[in-house]
């Protein structure tokens, strides 16, 4: 009887003591793990896959079989570099028809530097750093054409209608300017038709137009901005740390003159007034 009781006592005591030790050990090690979880961030990566546009001269386009070149590519490389990723470890992936938010969701890209603007709907699905550039819808005309000073002057003019872009609709629909929309297959084709006199004007974001103006001689940007279009850097949803880091990088990029250098390199001859100061950020979640 006595031994049984003694054994039971010992077992109970040992169990309680072990429980106490285990609790103490768990307490000291586990607490920071429970409340210290930050979502994964693009900061601290060794390599990055960046989604970019394709076929937009000055922004992101190939010359012949060469690599993608343009302002977007410069920004992407700059940001990646400041995030500690060398150019050799950056993969540029043209987005083509896929949306940055879908590509980010299914993990084919880590971030997107593109002209797909920041919108309220998109902000629900991805986190936007930037904008890295505040674009405005503007008008491209033939050099020397003084009849178009602003969007209202497009009344009765032939403007391009490029599939996948609704900028012509902003003119004829929202602004109720009775312009004649002429279907074109691409922006470049539109600019060439413009230079050849088959249409009178092209209208879309100023940087796209500036790129065209630099690539197609005989065309120039009017400098009559009439909407704001925010070019953001899309990051996976909830990457707050990455968003803050990229915003700091963009602030520095405008402060140290790198942005001005890049803009001048690609759009210096386009006639567009280029900004020298950082745009207003959307803010991180």
């Amino acid at each position, binding site marked *: 009887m006595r031994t049984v009781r003694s054994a039971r006592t010992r077992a109970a005591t040992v169990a309680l*003591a072990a*429980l*106490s030790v285990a609790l*103490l050990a*768990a307490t*000291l090690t586990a607490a920071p793990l429970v409340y210290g979880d930050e979502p994964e961030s693009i900061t601290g990566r060794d390599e990055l896959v960046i989604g970019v546009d394709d076929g937009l001269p000055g922004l992101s386009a190939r010359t012949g079989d060469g690599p993608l070149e343009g302002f977007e590519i410069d920004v992407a490389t700059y940001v990646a570099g400041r995030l500690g990723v060398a150019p050799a470890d950056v993969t540029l992936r043209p987005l083509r028809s896929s949306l940055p938010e879908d590509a980010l969701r299914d993990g084919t890209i880590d971030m997107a530097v593109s002209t797909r603007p920041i919108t309220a709907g998109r902000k629900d699905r991805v986190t936007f750093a930037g904008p890295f550039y505040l674009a405005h819808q503007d008008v491209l005309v033939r050099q020397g054409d003084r009849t178009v000073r*602003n969007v209202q002057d497009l009344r009765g003019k032939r403007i391009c209608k490029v599939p996948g872009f609704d900028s012509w609709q902003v003119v004829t629909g929202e602004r109720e300017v009775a312009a004649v929309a002429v279907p074109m297959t691409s922006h470049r084709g539109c600019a060439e038709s413009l230079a050849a006199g088959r249409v009178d004007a092209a209208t879309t974001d100023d940087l796209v137009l500036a790129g065209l103006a630099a690539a197609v001689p005989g065309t120039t940007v009017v400098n009559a901005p*009439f909407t704001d279009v925010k070019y953001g850097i899309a990051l996976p949803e909830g990457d707050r740390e990455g968003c803050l880091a990229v*915003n*700091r990088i963009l602030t520095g990029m405008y402060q140290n003159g790198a942005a001005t250098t890049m803009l001048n390199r690609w759009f210096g001859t386009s006639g567009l007034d280029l900004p020298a100061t950082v745009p207003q950020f959307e803010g991180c979640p």
Partner: protein
Amino acid sequence: MPVKPWGVDTVAGRVRALAVLALLALAVLVASAYAAVGDAREGVRTLGEREGPLAESIGDMYLALTDMDAQVTRVLLTEGEAGWLCAPEVAGADCERSGARYVYDIRREDAQRAALSAASTGPTDQARMRTVQALLNGLHDYDRHVQAAMDAAAGPGAPPPEAVREYRTATALMTRELLPKASNLAGEEAADVTTAYREGRSSVLAGRLRVLGAGLALVAAMAGLQVYLTRRFRRLVSLPLAAALVGALALTTTVATRLTTEADRLRTAKQTGLDPALDLTRVRALGTSMYTDRARQVLDPENADRYDRRYLDKSQTILHVAGASDLDGYYRALGRSVDFGGYFGARARQDANHPDGELLSAYRTYQDLDRTVRELAEDGRLDAAAQAHLDPRWRHLPHPAFRAYDRELDARISRHQAHRVHAALEAERALRPMTWLPPVAALAVGALIAAGIWPRLAEYR
């Protein structure tokens, strides 16, 4: 058998080992409580005294800048340049400086002070320093253009083209450079507070977890001691040990609940104090700025289209109506829309207990007024538009409909700021006994444990 007084093969050794385990748990409990209370205090002061008010003042800088631009625009619109240019200290008493000029000067000082405080905070951040510098330089340029516009516009009649040109430069500088910089500084500061708050709150919660764990470990060790002593020495219950157990439980629950309350108060201060105060300050600035956009349209009809577009963008940011791509559509949708987004939409979804009925109806009334002004301006009746845009009795004041809307916002901002301050004060007060209570209680519990095992160990001497 060799004597091993500290080993666990002797009865005394086992008793001692259990007691040491209990005391160790007690020490961990007190240390965790101490650290967590320190974290809580740090978090409370961050929100209550340091970064919290700083974020508010940097947020206000954005509003101050829009206020300045609003004053300039209204003075040019009402041809009040003489009162603006009057410098009583130079000209003697034969002119009177206008209220608008005083407001401008005061708000300029507010903006400058906030910019400087943004530069002096935290570790030396070169980029931030440069932003502040550029902001202050820009403010200086803005002053210069405003002065030039006022000089050119002085004299009877509507401002001449030269004045409008200077004004356009000034207001473009404001829109393209000063406001974005102020906004980015405010965003950065708000992000810093959010980071500090999240870290602070999670360390308080982690501290609570540690306190609970150590408390349970203490209880388990003491229960083990109790069981062992009861059986081994055939005593019923050791009274001091029982008291120590009760004390340990009380200490653990007190500290844990207090830390829970602290974490809740931190959240209150952040989520119902600072965050909405900052959001509404931004909304107020957007409101001032869009009200000014309409005045700009009258003053500078050449760029009417652009100002009108900005007006719509700001309206949509404040209260988003899906599918309204122009202002006519927006006004129409505003009258019947129940499903809306933007700042007001987010607010309505977050806080269903405090409906913003009055604020929303004030916003609608103001937009109704704007619709009238816009129609007049688009018909080219600029004088009538200016008349309708301003207070019918005191022309230097904004229209009562706008003032009512602005006042609703102001009242809410003050209320949220008060929430933040109140929650921080309460939290600070609740922390006061937590500096001495845990160590004193722990000493008592430790003494009781010692008192519980001392007589038993004495039997083995």
